[in-house]
């Protein structure tokens, strides 16, 4: 485990090297990766760790983005508070989604009800145009992180990196504890989990709320990244993209989430120069990975070192 923790040494290297190697566009792509890392980590918690087919995460993402945008535009609150508000809003949405799972709506039924919820939210953004400006999108004022104006990709990069590292580390702490074990044990055998004195309903709620908050924060970052929030950023296609990131990286693995988010942000972006190729490639990557690496890209790392196997405790 300690060997795996050396990955953290990479973070300062990344922080120092990337901004000086990349132009404004590449830095934008890296910032998008950081946003999608949180999206995938949050989504994976419900899909991979809790094992519930809930697709409400893209809706949490939109709720986070619109919460931040609306509060900044209409209430003029600082960006830092908008991030906190997005985390809370995402958590509340996560709680609502957990109620459906607790009511015994599972599997395909949970899948379809959460997909419908996502479409409903998109409809709300589209038709709540007095507030959301509908399909024109809601332009946000230039955000500042405390006293740092986020007026170019470089300051955004450092703020996003800080947020991503903190949230991923907190999520990792949570997963490697009695709480993370309770969540995974519910996936593996819900009935026998209760026989160990574990209040299963409570941990289903914890998983959904945490997932919603993480993705809500990603939404607030996304709002700052694109500076104008559109309903189409949270549609069905995006759900597929986010789900693809989870599958390509590896379900139930935090390292996998990071890999999936990076891969499926970078490759389609690269192939955008060949019109039509990016969508095609997106599909091809998912098919190839599912065929040859059903446990995702992280399984390649597991072959190199068993330290990459997802563990639910810390030495």
């Amino acid at each position, binding site marked *: 485990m300690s060997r795996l923790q050396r990955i953290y040494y990479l973070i300062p290297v990344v922080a120092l090297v990337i901004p000086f190697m990349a132009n404004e566009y590449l830095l934008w792509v890296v910032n998008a990766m950081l946003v999608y890392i949180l999206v995938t980590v949050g989504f994976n918690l419900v899909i991979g760790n809790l094992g519930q087919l809930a697709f409400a995460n893209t809706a949490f993402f939109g709720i986070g983005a619109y919460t931040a945008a609306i509060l900044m535009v209409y209430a003029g609150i600082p960006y830092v508070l908008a991030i906190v508000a997005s985390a809370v809003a995402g958590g509340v949405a996560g709680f609502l989604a957990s109620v459906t799972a607790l009511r015994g709506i599972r599997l395909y039924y949970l899948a379809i009800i959460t997909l419908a919820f996502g479409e409903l939210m998109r409809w709300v953004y589209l038709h709540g145009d007095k507030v959301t400006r509908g399909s024109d999108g809601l332009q946000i004022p230039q955000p500042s992180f405390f006293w740092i104006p986020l007026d170019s990709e470089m300051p955004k990069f450092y703020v996003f990196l800080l947020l991503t590292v903190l949230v991923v580390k907190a999520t990792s702490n949570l997963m490697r504890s009695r709480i993370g074990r309770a969540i995974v044990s519910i996936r593996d*055998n819900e009935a026998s989990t209760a026989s160990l004195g574990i209040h299963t309903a409570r941990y289903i709620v914890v998983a959904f709320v945490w997932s919603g908050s993480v993705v809500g924060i990603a939404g607030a970052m996304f709002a700052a990244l694109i500076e104008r929030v559109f309903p189409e950023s949270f549609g069905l296609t995006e759900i597929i993209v986010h789900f693809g990131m989870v599958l390509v990286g590896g379900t139930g693995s935090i390292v996998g989430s990071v890999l999936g988010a990076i891969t499926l942000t970078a490759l389609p972006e690269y192939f955008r120069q060949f019109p039509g190729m990016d969508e095609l490639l997106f599909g091809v990557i998912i098919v190839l990975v599912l065929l040859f690496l059903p446990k995702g890209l992280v399984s390649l790392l597991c072959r190199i070192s068993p330290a990459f196997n997802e563990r639910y405790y810390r030495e």
Partner: protein
Amino acid sequence: MEPLLELQGVSVNFSGLQALANVTFNAHAGEVRAVIGPNGAGKTTLFNAISGYVPSTEGAMHFMGKPIHGLAPHEISAMGVRRTFQNGGLFPEMTALENVLTGLHVDIDSSFLGIVLGLREAREAEREGLARARRLLDLMDLGAIADQPVKDLSGGQQRMVEIVRTLATEPPLLLLDEPVVGLSPPMRDRMMEIIRRLAGEEGIGIMLIEHVIDLVMSGSDIIVVLSSGEMIAEGPPDEIRQNREVLEAYLGHA
């Protein structure tokens, strides 16, 4: 001696089907109590009713003097009634160690905030749990397979891990649903030996469901016989062996 578990007229009704009818007995600490009966007699239903997985329609159940009827499975378990499952209740993707750690959940005293922020008190509580889980596996000679996912273990090893996980919090009462089914005869004997030791040396009250009559006769102190949901006999092995009603239920003669 005050009984560990008191059942008084416990009945379970599945939409008209009487799965358990008026079952009454007391189970004690340090005693191995076998529950036997033909298929469909209500043995697992009895365990499900005691552990809260199936609501009892009538009657009262008390554990160490406190009522447990109507409580949820996790509440009954937290009070100290722990069980295993006929088809195995392990978490297959987790390692043996992680399974036992999950069994220690209620004993690991770490707060949500402490865990998320990685505070020392939370890390220490986790570390204590980890050390205890390793010790428990070592005690049962399972130390070597501690870090393997349980889905890769043999059936016998899986049973052992499940028993260790169930025992981790030192519960006063253990319900074992067919603990030796699918085990080789030497493993079977070893498991029965462990069960006898847990009752004899640790003073744990054990109830077990078992089909192999020889094991039941040699390994248990008291036998409860169920037939069509009714308790038709209760007593030490010698008495049960000679009980006419039991012979009829099993062999079907008049």
